[in-house]
């Protein structure tokens, strides 16, 4: 869904046994490979295109609002910058914020989740109720609040993205930890007298990791949409910074005069990135189910 909130999983659909048989290696064009390839392209593009086309990112009022053509594949923006280079430049902001923010929340949320899941104390119940309250609340509005009180900029965006995702990771990792800690070899390790940190590190963590990784890609997809929505609403990035949501917002005022490309290309960029992240995420889920 494309809003900015992640909808929690539906409570326990009875699992249908999968018809597929496990394969050692997927086909070359598996959704995971395609997704990874697109992501690689985006990252490489974000790094080199603004560098190669640096002169096209300069304001050139004479070239303002040109439609897509061979020399400007995505057209130009209201101040004559090449939109292709600009979209690539914006990928830097969006992808960095999404990836760093989500990784941050995965690490912090993951640590809390493992501890809470393994300790099973009275406090963990209380914490989960607190998270319930927290998650009843729309992520976008929560991020807006953070930004309003802390100020905009890439680092604040990263914090906002990280913050809103922490509860999701706590919940997920806690559940996985609970499940993993019931496995016989964990009991065995406990009996042998292994220390708690060692059990957590050697026996629980590897089990928990895959789930958390999957969630990382999915969450990064939502994070891109979240950052875009914040930009669209006019908060978040530094003024003048390239950002997909901001570019779409700027494009809205040119709708009636026919410059559709100002909305279309940044929009496509968001969709492609999010889809690629989802393809990777889903393929990991499938792979796990098969296992």
């Amino acid at each position, binding site marked *: 869904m494309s809003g900015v909130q992640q909808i929690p999983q539906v409570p326990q659909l009875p699992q249908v046994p999968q018809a597929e048989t496990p394969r050692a290696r997927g086909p070359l064009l598996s959704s995971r490979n395609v997704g990874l390839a697109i992501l690689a392209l985006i990252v490489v593009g974000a790094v080199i295109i603004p560098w190669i086309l640096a002169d096209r990112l300069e304001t050139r009022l004479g070239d303002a609002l040109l439609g897509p053509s061979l020399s400007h594949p995505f057209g130009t923006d*209201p101040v004559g910058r090449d939109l292709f280079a600009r979209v690539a430049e914006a990928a830097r902001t969006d992808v960095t914020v999404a990836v760093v923010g989500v990784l941050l929340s995965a690490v912090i949320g993951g640590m809390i989740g493992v501890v809470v899941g393994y300790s099973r104390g009275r406090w963990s119940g209380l914490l989960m109720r607190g998270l319930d309250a927290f998650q009843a609340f729309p992520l976008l509005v929560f991020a807006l609040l953070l930004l*309003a*009180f*802390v*100020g*905009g*900029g890439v680092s604040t965006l990263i914090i906002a993205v990280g913050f809103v995702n922490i509860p999701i990771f706590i919940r997920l990792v806690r559940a996985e930890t609970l499940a993993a800690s019931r496995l016989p070899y964990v009991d065995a390790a406990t009996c042998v007298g292994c220390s708690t940190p060692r059990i957590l590190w050697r026996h629980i963590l590897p089990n928990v990791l895959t789930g958390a990784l999957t969630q990382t890609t999915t969450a990064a997809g939502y994070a891109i949409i979240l950052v875009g929505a914040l930009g669209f*609403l*006019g*908060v978040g990035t*530094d*003024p*003048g910074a390239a950002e997909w949501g901001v570019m779409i*917002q*700027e494009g*809205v*005022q*040119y*709708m*009636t*005069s026919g410059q559709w490309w100002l909305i279309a290309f940044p929009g496509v960029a968001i969709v492609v990135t999010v889809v690629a992240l989802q393809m990777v995420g889903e393929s990991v889920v499938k792979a796990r189910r098969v296992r």
Partner: protein
Amino acid sequence: MSKVDSRRRRGGLRLACVALGLTVMTTACGGGGTSSTGDAADSGKPAKTSMSVAAGAIAENIDPDAPSAVVVANYQTVKNVYEPLVRFGYQANDADLGGGLKLDTQKVEPALATSWEYADNAWTFKLREGVKSHAGNEFTSADVVWTYERSKALAATGALLWTKFMGVSAVEAVDKYTVKFTTDGASPMLLATMAVASYVRPIDSTEAKKHVTADDKWAAKWLGENAAGFGAYAISDWQRPRSITLQPRPDYWDAANSGNLAVTTQAVTNPAQRLNALTKGDVDIALGLTPQQVTTASQNDSLTVVKFNANTRAFVYPNLDDSNIADVKVRQAMWTAVPTKDIIERVYNGDAFELKSPVSPYIAGYTDEFFRYDHSMEKAKALMAESSKPNGFKSELYYSSEEPILQQVAEILKSSWAQIGIDIQLKAEPNAQLQTRNFNNHDIPLYMEDLGATEVPDACSIGALWAKGGIANSNNYHDDTFNKAFEDCLDQVEFADREPAMKQLQKAAIDNPMVIPIVGLYSTTVIRSNVQNLAFDPSGATPYRTVTVK
């Protein structure tokens, strides 16, 4: 301007905005004699009878003295619904600014009052007879007295204007149509304040008193939702928070200059959508567009950009408690080092002007003759060398993180001030936090904003803001020449007698700057080209009474 617009509060200094409150109507009743109805008649086409406005937000509480009355959206309604005792005349705005009607700030005209005179610390106003309120009650001196008592009791913006700008210490009814204001000295800003500020406009006390309750002695709840004034317009439909429709009142006292159009204002949060609706012809006026959108609109033949020389400016407020900035020479050097032309070209696309006095150019008593800070890095360096900080210093410039345009201005200032040895760190912070810090904690060395609309259109008003005990004086400004000039300013009633003092006041404010002016901004409205006689109001609201649509 935040893209999300526009209920944004103007903060502390914006007091001014307060002050500005209003100017309803009056077409060129005195001034250029532009008869609004005439144009439509000439064209042969029937004039339209309704008009639609896209604004960032609409009024949701129309109590003229509510705290929220500092919001432009509220002025938009309040100023059209309430009528002042006196008003300014209009004159034609410069054609290259898009035409329309600007204020003649030296010409005060009768409105609800027909005549007035000053003698011995008291102003006496003769009131117009037979004026009817929205509820049909007759306007009397009791309404003026009640409005004053109400402001005093609420101790909000109105009280501030009555005391600080109008210098009024008591209001009494001499007879049914005569009212006497006891003032502290001549208090010459009284008229200008009345003419613009909506906070002090007479309320229909007969009607309001019917809605007084034990908890609400001044009918704040009822006045928030009902118009009880004597203005040109009445509210005919109000779908909060989306739209409000004002209808011209047939029994408005100035029938010859009453409004022509029913005006529906719609709240359109997204400025881009306001422009789209205007371009498509679904609305006639769009308010609060971004500079970039104004540029887009100016290229469209069916749209007209109307600019008024207003009181919106980008200012840097130095904190004089900071030992670096306390030195006059340092502030003079900083002013001289402001690359005004560069900022106007690069940041505002040429759509701004140089400020040569802390007073806005449209204001009565304005002068640029003492300005001596033409941009020059050599002069700035020389001033720094003479100062107590010849080797420069480090400082911090704060501004709202919600205003992207300020970031660009700040960067230009940073590089320019770096050349005279002032190493500025830029600090963008959320508005709320900045206001607390600037006005309460005073822990910000340099504060920049571009909203400031801080005056009653009378050059004396900078004295009320910055002299000893001035309401805007949160940065500890103190200058004896300035204080003396302000006292002189308050001594006389006639403009000609006060003008020398007004000039002295500006000279003192330039010699020892309490603010570092960066650029002046126009008050800009974009209209369909068939909309005519759009009039200026210092609050940013639109007085509908003069407007016609062909």
